[in-house]
């Protein structure tokens, strides 16, 4: 495989890994299939580029992008908890509404370039690597890897705290939260805030990596993230010491690799989403036949 494809896979894959870490919280921990992702991803991007263009340092822009994502998670969670709207519908409502919000923030533009503004991938550190494309890619990979590892370690630590335990317990068994004298709804909303915060952060980082904001960048992000989480957790299902966070990151890298290889084999890019959906389907089927020991889905167990 040509080196540049491998570099592409790693850069893109690590961006998607952050989305996967977010969706790991909503889908795996809270058992909440959250469609907000498709819109919170570009929201992060547009918030980030908007701030950078008015001169805000990129680090602060990234933090604000994260916060903007937590707000979308809050809305979806609030709709679900307060008005008992199903997870899918709450997600759809927020996701659809955000499409307009994103366009409004972008002032109607669907594509905005960063130009030569200082970003995560265009700063004093990356300049050290000169003009060589492979070296630049390497610099990007180092930066992304550091970010992904920091997020992963923070998440692993969080899941050892009381609040982390509570989040897992509420996702596992909602009655548990109530029995423990806690407001289950609060923890659900909190988890969705975190999840979408990470997704928006990923969107912001991805836009900086691409060096432009693309209004449609979020389309299909749910599929990418779910596929990543499901591949990762299926592969490491019986390996006890690999954490769900690590599994999600590896899953994201594998799924990105699969997509890139298929496109590299000559499938026209207009079929990208078709390829995404079909490979997701194949993954679910493989997961069903090879990775689950007992095929019958027992009462109370989560469907794939």
């Amino acid at each position, binding site marked *: 495989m040509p080196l540049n494809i491998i570099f592409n896979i790693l850069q893109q894959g690590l961006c998607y890994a952050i989305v996967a870490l977010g969706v790991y919280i909503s889908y795996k921990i809270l058992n909440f299939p959250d469609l907000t992702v498709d819109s919170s991803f570009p929201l992060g991007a547009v918030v980030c580029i908007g701030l950078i263009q008015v001169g805000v340092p990129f680090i602060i822009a990234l933090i604000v992008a994260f916060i903007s994502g937590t707000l979308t998670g809050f809305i979806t969670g609030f709709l679900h908890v307060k008005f008992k709207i199903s997870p899918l519908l709450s997600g759809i409502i927020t996701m659809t509404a955000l499409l307009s919000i994103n366009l409004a923030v972008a002032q109607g533009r669907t594509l905005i370039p960063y130009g030569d503004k200082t970003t995560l991938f265009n700063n004093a550190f990356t300049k050290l690597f000169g003009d060589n494309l492979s070296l630049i890619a390497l610099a990007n990979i180092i930066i992304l890897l550091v970010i992904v590892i920091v997020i992963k370690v923070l998440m692993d630590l969080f899941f050892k705290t*009381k*609040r982390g335990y509570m989040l*897992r317990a509420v996702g596992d068994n909602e009655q548990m939260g109530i029995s423990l*004298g806690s407001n289950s709804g609060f923890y659900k909303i909190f988890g969705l805030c975190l999840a979408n915060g990470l997704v928006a952060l990923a969107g912001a980082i991805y836009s900086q990596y691409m060096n432009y904001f693309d209004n449609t960048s979020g389309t299909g992000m749910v599929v990418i993230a779910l596929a990543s989480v499901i591949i990762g957790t299926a592969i490491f299902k019986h390996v006890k010491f690999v954490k769900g966070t690590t599994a999600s990151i590896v899953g994201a890298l594998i799924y990105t690799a699969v997509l890139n290889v298929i496109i590299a084999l000559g499938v026209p890019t207009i079929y990208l989403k078709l390829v995404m959906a079909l490979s997701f389907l194949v993954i679910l089927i493989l997961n069903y036949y090879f990775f689950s020991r007992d095929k019958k889905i027992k009462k109370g167990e989560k469907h794939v």
Partner: protein
Amino acid sequence: MSNLLSLKGIYKSFNKGTIDEMALFTDFNLDIKEGEFVSIVGSNGSGKTTILNIISGSTPIDGGDVCLKDENINKMKEYLRARRIARVYQDPALGTSPNLTVLENLALADNKGHYYGLSFAFNKKKKAEYQELLKSLNMGLEDKMNTKVKRLSGGQRQALALLMATMQPVDILLLDEHTAALDPKTSEEIMELTNRIIKEKHITTLMVTHNLRYAIEYGNRLLMFNQGSIIIDKSDKEKENINVDDLLKTFNEISIECGN
């Protein structure tokens, strides 16, 4: 002694506004004194579980008052009541978190009613403490601290649920047919364990059961429910004189009346 829990003039109907509307409780009254261990028997649909739901707050009432320690808790949310009213369910899956380990479940229950913040859930000292607690249950759980709860047997799960429900001090414990899903031997073990915990910690308890023998053998007060009212209420001495046959006879009589 003053009443720990009182239900006054409870009114509750189901399928309200439809042709199937059925008033289960019309002016239901019950007082529970501190330290009582009450067993509740009755046929299906007699309102045993509904009463537990009304006390714990998972079923809203249409009228009347629920008072705990002279405080009206009608408007108190279920999760806030849970800090004072513990409950063990028939389904072992409800009282524990299946994908968390035994240790993680205990750590959660140990913090019940407190703030779940960003401090670590347990430390070495706590872990040793939990191990001792599990040992005292005699269910072999002390060697399964790091096992996911869904991998435990039904009996082990119920023992754990019982331990978790009573880890932090509570005003009252509700047992909702908590041995019904277990085999006879395990059921016996859990019942013994329940009795031991209740006695050691002096917990006021309401136990719904289908097992008439348990209802007679355990506890110091016995209630029989029929169609939303209490038809037998015997305490202490009176209760000691009841036997299974008498109880079964009354049970059959009311069943015939209902056409069962």
